[in-house]
């Protein structure tokens, strides 16, 4: 245990974090109740859909993929928040990452369930979902998706769990009752011996490297579900990297949003400082520029080529029925975040939060304007229609976001949302030289 400067030895220096786990305030309860209400409503909508079939949606020929698939791509994209960011920053020894990795990794694991969940919502026969395992057809990009997402979910869960072990052991030692039993079981007999530390560091090091190619593959394969068809404006060779860039972009925005909320609610101002938001804001700025580059390259080549089928989709986005979504997306993904983040004066905590919220909205719109306009302008001369989601689809989307928030809140009541052991000096000479900025600022109280 690190020495607590100026305070009695009995008080844990990380009391704000521990306290956040062990106490449930009225604000938490009110939010939980509201979110549970939304989830219950979504379950009603889901039951309605199970009873009436996908006729409860407004999907129809030829636009059979809509809100659910948009959400699927969006959630899988956001999942790149955690694992990838935390792994990359860990490997390049950007030590300021220490207080934010846990928060990011939890987003990854939780949000993946909702990505997969949206595919299940979208199935005409969800009861037969296991057919992809029982009768797999390896030439189908959807099956590649099943494979890569399963591997990613497993790897990112392990990558979340391993660094949790010392903190779980810490919780085990300060709790009693059911919590003690739970933590004792999850701590896997951690006592903090040098051998255990060595193994832990090794495991984290291996996972951090392993997780990067897996994460890249996941969103690449998600893009291939679209790009492998010859649908106009889906059949693009840059879709893989374009989707990965968008995924990291929306992932960073999701981390920042979560950080601001957790910081405010649990009073973690001395863990999550201006510097963290400044650094992440700069990362977000870089990703905004990359996003612009990819979008520009994708749309310019389509426009210049003037292939009639492609152009029909292009025009529907630029000036047709999808123009309002496309240009809102452009403003949200580039104009607003670039303006805010390129200026050091506005790259504050509030500024990065505003930019992040816009990026999240913009990236959702990007997924929507990739999925729906192509299907609305099919290659064959078939009758089409204007798709707008039904109340069931909107309700299930709201339910997904509410359930995600609930699970995230639940996590903060079970485990330290900040990786405590990583903030403390290593037991031996483990501490890297660059580790200066990770120490929490001096307690003001």
């Amino acid at each position, binding site marked *: 245990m690190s020495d607590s400067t100026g305070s009695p030895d009995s008080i844990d220096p990380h009391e704000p974090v521990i306290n956040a786990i062990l106490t449930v305030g009225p604000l938490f309860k009110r939010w939980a109740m509201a979110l549970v209400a939304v989830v219950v409503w979504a379950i009603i909508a889901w039951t309605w859909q199970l009873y009436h079939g996908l006729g409860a949606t407004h999907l129809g020929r*030829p636009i059979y993929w809509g809100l659910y698939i948009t959400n699927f791509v969006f959630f899988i994209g956001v999942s790149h928040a955690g694992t990838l960011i935390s792994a990359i920053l860990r490997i390049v020894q950007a030590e300021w990452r220490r207080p934010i990795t846990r928060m990011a990794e939890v987003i990854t694991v939780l949000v993946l369930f909702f990505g997969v969940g949206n595919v299940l919502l979208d199935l*005409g*026969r969800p009861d037969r979902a296991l057919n992809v395992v029982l*009768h797999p057809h390896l030439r189908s990009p959807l099956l590649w998706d099943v494979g890569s997402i399963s591997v990613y979910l497993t790897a990112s869960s392990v990558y979340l769990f391993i660094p949790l072990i010392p903190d779980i052991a810490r919780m085990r030692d300060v709790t009693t009752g059911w919590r003690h039993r739970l933590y004792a079981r999850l701590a896997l007999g951690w006592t903090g011996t040098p051998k255990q530390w060595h193994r832990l560091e090794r495991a984290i090091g291996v996972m951090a490297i392993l997780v990067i190619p897996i994460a890249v593959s996941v969103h690449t394969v998600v893009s291939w*579900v679209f790009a*492998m068809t010859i649908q106009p404006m889906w059949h693009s060779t840059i879709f893989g990297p374009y989707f990965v860039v968008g995924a990291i972009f929306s992932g960073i925005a999701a981390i920042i949003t979560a950080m601001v909320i957790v910081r405010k609610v649990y009073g973690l101002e001395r863990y999550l400082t201006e510097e963290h938001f400044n650094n992440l804001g700069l990362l977000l700025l870089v990703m905004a520029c990359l996003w612009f580059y990819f979008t520009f390259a994708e749309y310019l080549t389509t426009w210049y080529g003037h292939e009639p089928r492609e152009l029909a989709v292009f025009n529907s986005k630029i000036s047709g029925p999808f123009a309002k979504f496309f240009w809102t997306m452009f403003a949200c993904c580039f104009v607003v975040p670039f303006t805010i983040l390129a200026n050091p004066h506005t790259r504050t905590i509030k500024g990065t939060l505003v930019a992040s919220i816009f990026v999240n909205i913009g990236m959702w719109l990007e997924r929507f304007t990739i999925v729906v306009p192509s299907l609305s302008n099919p290659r064959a001369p078939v009758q089409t229609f204007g798709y707008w989601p039904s109340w069931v689809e909107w309700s299930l989307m709201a339910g997904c976001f509410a359930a995600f928030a609930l699970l995230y809140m639940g996590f903060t009541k079970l485990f330290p949302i900040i990786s405590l052991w990583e903030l403390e000096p290593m037991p031996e000479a483990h501490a890297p030289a660059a580790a200066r900025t990770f120490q929490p600022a001096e307690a003001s109280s």
Partner: protein
Amino acid sequence: MMPTQRFGMVIDPERCIHCAACLVACKAENAVPDGHSRNRLSEQESGAYPSVRVVMAPSQCMQCDDAPCVRVCPTGASYRDANGVVLINADDCIGCRYCVEACPYGARYFDEESGTVDKCTFCVHRVEQGLEPACVTTCPTKTRVFGNLDDPSSAVARLIASAPTEVRLPEAGTRPKIYYMRGDSR
């Protein structure tokens, strides 16, 4: 057991009078649910002013030899049978509709009732009994000719050999087995 054949169809747009009897016959024969149709009548404009023409022709699943729908199906529910007919094993279909989105011809539909995808089967249940597909039998102007493309003596093979034909969206590379007589040849 009949020897393996390669079923295909030739459609002559010049003969089509847009009576929609093929749509009705298909719907009745295959009990196609309300609001859906396995085949359709399309109008395709070609040329530019002043020499414009409208070609009206029936359209349906092209029974592609290299079918994108079969390729993308995650469970193998979509498959080509021994005679090259693209079929769906409804018991394996999970209703993901990837095949619908992958088909460049918009030939498939999703049946909300059953939660699975369906499409033209070339009336295999009739063909097995030596009959022709319902749309072929019912057509009053013999717009459609059905048969074994690999048999040089079949009506389809002879038509393709004797007159210029084309396929829809050849650039899609799907090698469709429904051929259209070219109107510009007459």
